[in-house]
């Protein structure tokens, strides 16, 4: 027999998946808008971010309700507590994607072939977010570990972008504004990567009961 608790857990799971889907949507669109220089697409990002904020609130309420009314233990408790942590990371991903979209709208960033590293960063970050959400949906521990390891790639790319931008400013001081915008975009991508790693770590915790911070 399906108890109310099981139904609520299932609802929590599907709400998390939906919120994850929105995160994938928002980061994919933000990256595409940036790479195509498409302000119209960038404008579409904001409403999705607001939807993510709403979802965060809903999921938090649901988690607290579950904790107070059902007093879950073991695996269920881990799922609920990691859900509470994950939504925060997802919400931050939404915000930062919206920030990237905002920069795309306001500043005319010409992304040409010289910005391959930013392109790579965008692609890598989108992959990381997709991977982290997939790891949660499929309860895939291996994928979660792969995402955690992949963060180094994004961090290295960020360093490369930074070096490139320093060089650009050195060569042409007029491109300072462009370089600063670009640096911000790269930093947002790097932070989104970190949030994806956090999600992957909570996925690991939900499955195994061990978390990096607890082990240390």
């Amino acid at each position, binding site marked *: 027999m399906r108890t109310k608790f099981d139904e609520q857990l299932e609802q929590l799971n*599907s709400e998390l*998946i939906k919120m*994850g*889907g*929105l995160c*994938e*949507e928002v980061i994919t669109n933000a990256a595409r808008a940036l790479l195509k220089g498409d302000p119209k697409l960038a404008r579409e990002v904001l409403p999705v971010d607001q*939807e993510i904020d709403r979802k965060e609130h809903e999921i938090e309420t649901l988690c607290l309700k579950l904790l107070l009314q059902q007093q879950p233990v073991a695996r269920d408790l881990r799922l609920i507590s990691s859900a509470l942590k994950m939504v925060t990371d997802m919400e931050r991903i939404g915000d930062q994607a919206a920030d990237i979209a905002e920069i795309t709208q306001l500043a005319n960033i010409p992304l040409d072939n010289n910005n391959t590293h930013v392109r790579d960063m965008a692609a890598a970050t989108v992959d990381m977010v997709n991977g982290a959400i997939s790891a949660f*949906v499929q309860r895939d521990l291996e994928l979660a570990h792969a995402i955690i390891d992949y963060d180094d790639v994004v961090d290295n790319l960020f360093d490369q972008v930074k070096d490139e931008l320093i060089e650009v400013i050195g060569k042409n001081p007029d491109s300072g504004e462009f370089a600063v915008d670009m640096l911000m975009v790269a930093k947002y991508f790097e932070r989104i990567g970190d949030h994806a790693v956090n999600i992957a770590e909570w996925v690991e915790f939900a499955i195994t009961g061990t978390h990096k911070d607890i082990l240390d």
Partner: protein
Amino acid sequence: MKQRVYGYFCLLIIGTVLFTSIIISYVMHQRLYATVRQTVVSETNLLKDVLEQSPAVDLTVLARNPDLFRITLFSQERTVLFDNSNSSSVLPADEMLTNPEVLQAFDSGSSERIYFASGIQYQTFSATLRLTDGSVIRVEKVVESLFRMIIRNRSYLFFLILLIFFGSNFLANRLIREITAPVNNLNLDELSLSKVDDVFSPLVRRILGQQIRFDRQIKEARKRQIEFSLVLQNMREGLIVLNSNANIITINKSALNYFGAKDGDYIDKSIYMINRRAGLQSAIEKALMGEPAEELIFVNSRYLQLLVSPISEDAVVQGIILLVMDVTEKHDAEVRRREFSANVSHELKTPLTTISGYAELLKNGLVKPPDVYRFSERIYIEATRMSELISDIITLSRLDERQIDLPFEHVDLYQLMTDISGRFTDSARERDITISLSGQSSVIYGIRRILEEMLFNICDNALKYNLDGGRIDISVSEGDDFIMVSVSDTGIGIPEEEQDRVFERFYRVEKSHSKQTGGTGLGLSIAKHGALVHSAKIILESTPNVGTTIRIRFPKH
């Protein structure tokens, strides 16, 4: 079944035992009673004889055992002369005088009586005789009644019944096992009438009949399923069937490919394991509410059109059918068409503005007579440009829609190139450009008008974008399975990053330059479409400020 057999067994055996024991007891008792009666009567006669022969005999000796017989002697005066009973539990002898058999014996000389004493537990047999001296002798024997005997032996009976219960259970089990053994041991896979007991042959015959029918139905169902899954798996469109929890019931290969999902078992898993796009989510949610939905989502650099419809029964959504179509090309074509119409309007409006401006000045008489010629020329040039543009657009749209009602015929490309280059001789001479044509007669099967249009446009470009005093080399050559037309110029060239785009409609490398050279921006687009019609390939090589070579490679038919 077992319970019932067991019940019947018990009932039958207990019934038999009870009935038999009652009958046997009854018969035995009847015989016992007869013997007892006989004994009592003969004892009475014996005593009577003894008493009559020798009245002084001592009765106490003769009747010393009161348990065997109770002997009572009454005098003629109806008093008790002798009684051998010393027990207090029996009827006292003087009270016996009122007994009917005693009274009867006094009257008629003899009597017998059988009656129950102490309830129904004991049966009393008595014989009474009158002696010659008028006294009466009574002999009585008490034996157990049939009921008492049965009641006394009830423990044996109870034990017997218990035995019957267990015995019946055992026998019932055994019987059922034996009856069902042939049925249980039936090998349904190798069923044959010859191997089973006759009793079961109707059953076996029916099973065999059923088996044949089932086999046929299963084969039919399997065939249909294979056909269905073949169709499903090889459909170009993705098809997903979901249940009311948005879990996957069926998913085909195309759908997995469209969503970029890894191969694996997704049956009974959430659709969101495959994709979580907001568009997909909202479409599914809408369908779960019972409304069909349509969404366009962008996944893996492709535009996917989702058609989601609910499957409802009695107004309750039981599942969802999700059809996924790749509409990237359609979407891109739509974008191109929109761009094209925007460009066409713009391109048409520019000469029209010039024409109407100049015409207005002329109409209002604001133009001095010496300038009228210049203005008219300007109007003429712009009108020609518009006319060219319109005819180009018509050609392109015909090529686009593949509405070519022109006949295929054998065309000598060398001859055609000679004609075309001839048309440029004057304008080339004006700019001191040399045109050379080399090659040999090469015939392909194609549409003359389109070939002419293509090659004219390419030569036109070679001239337009050439430098004064430059060269145009045209050659027609033939390979094993192709004919190649090559046009190279020594013009301004096309930068590498723009080379892909020059075949796009209205695309111009240098926007300002086109105004001077004229042209519609559709030339290479027409060439590209013309090549498509002829299954030819266009190869472009260009170096800025050195020149451009365009080769068209026609396959030999």
